[in-house]
């Protein structure tokens, strides 16, 4: 490959001056503040999670972390999102 010309070299340098770090910082600030807001969900969430876990466990053996309860804010609405991860193979889980 041909060596970079002097003009190209300086153009390249000027472009990289701006750098991708500032984009990274901006994106991080947005996502982190979003995730922090979710963290501060209602107080009953852990209890709700625990009770749901107990109900699920009557039927399927799942990890303590298998039940996830999140509150999403969407304008004036709050959406309660419930996620239950079942074991990879149901039969195995039920036998234990």
């Amino acid at each position, binding site marked *: 490959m041909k060596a970079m010309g002097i003009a190209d070299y300086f153009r390249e340098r000027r472009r*990289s001056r701006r*750098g991708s*770090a500032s984009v*990274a910082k901006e994106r991080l600030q947005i996502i982190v503040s979003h995730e922090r807001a979710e*963290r501060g969900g209602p107080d009953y969430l852990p209890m709700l999670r625990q009770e749901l876990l107990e109900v699920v466990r009557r039927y399927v053996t799942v990890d303590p972390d298998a039940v996830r309860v999140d509150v999403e804010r969407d304008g004036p609405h709050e959406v309660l999102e419930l996620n239950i991860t079942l074991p990879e193979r149901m039969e195995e889980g039920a036998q234990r």
Partner: protein
Amino acid sequence: MSRIVVITSGKGGVGKTTTAASLAAGLARAGHRTAVVDFDVGLRNLDLVMGCERRVVFDFVNVINGDARLNQALIKDKRLSNLSILPASQTRDKDALTPDGVERVLDELRADFDYVICDSPAGIERGAHLASYHADDAIVVTNPEVSSVRDSDRVLGLLASRTRRAEQGDDPVREHLLLTRYDPQRVKKGDMLSVEDVQEILAINLLGVIPESQSVLNASNAGIPVVLEDGEDAGQAYNDAIARYLGEDRPHRFLQAERRGLFGRMFGG
């Protein structure tokens, strides 16, 4: 009063085990009785990084199950007499660590050591939870890179809500940031998040910055905690961080790019 310190990060491969090995060796060298515990059940690695892999007889899970006494499982470091290592089990049973078992072993370690360093597995699952649950202090190891910073923030959320201290309403876990694999040259070019950027986002106390360095790989290749390599930049940076952890006030080093001549700038990349 002994302290339990968790080395955590969320993301894997950022330098937790390297940091656990160096913090433990550094504290021991400073005269403190120190134990370092590998919580990464299934993937034992701390022993290798510390160079005692051939002396593992019993492990953490053996102690929890009552198959061995703690003293039989602890490996005494050959370089530092007041440093001991408790290796992880290689069992594939991820439930091998039980909350009660971990508590019992940590209580026993607390009685014999000034510092108990818990090397957390990656992720935020059971193993990571158990490693951080009893912590008094947390060292959050972070790379100047988006996914690592985001994971660190999630881990901070868990430290504030799902630890013994949080649940019992005690003083919160003391959180420290350790920024690793830092490349001042790339920061200067604007291609890497700066230490100020990361600090602004995570907003916790900065314990230290470890420069990206060949010496880290060299040390782990040889099974030596890099902090014991006094002639190397990464070793010195770890040394500074440990001194700060112990309350000393030391200026941060290795944050500026080395001055390079025109030749180096054009061909150094």
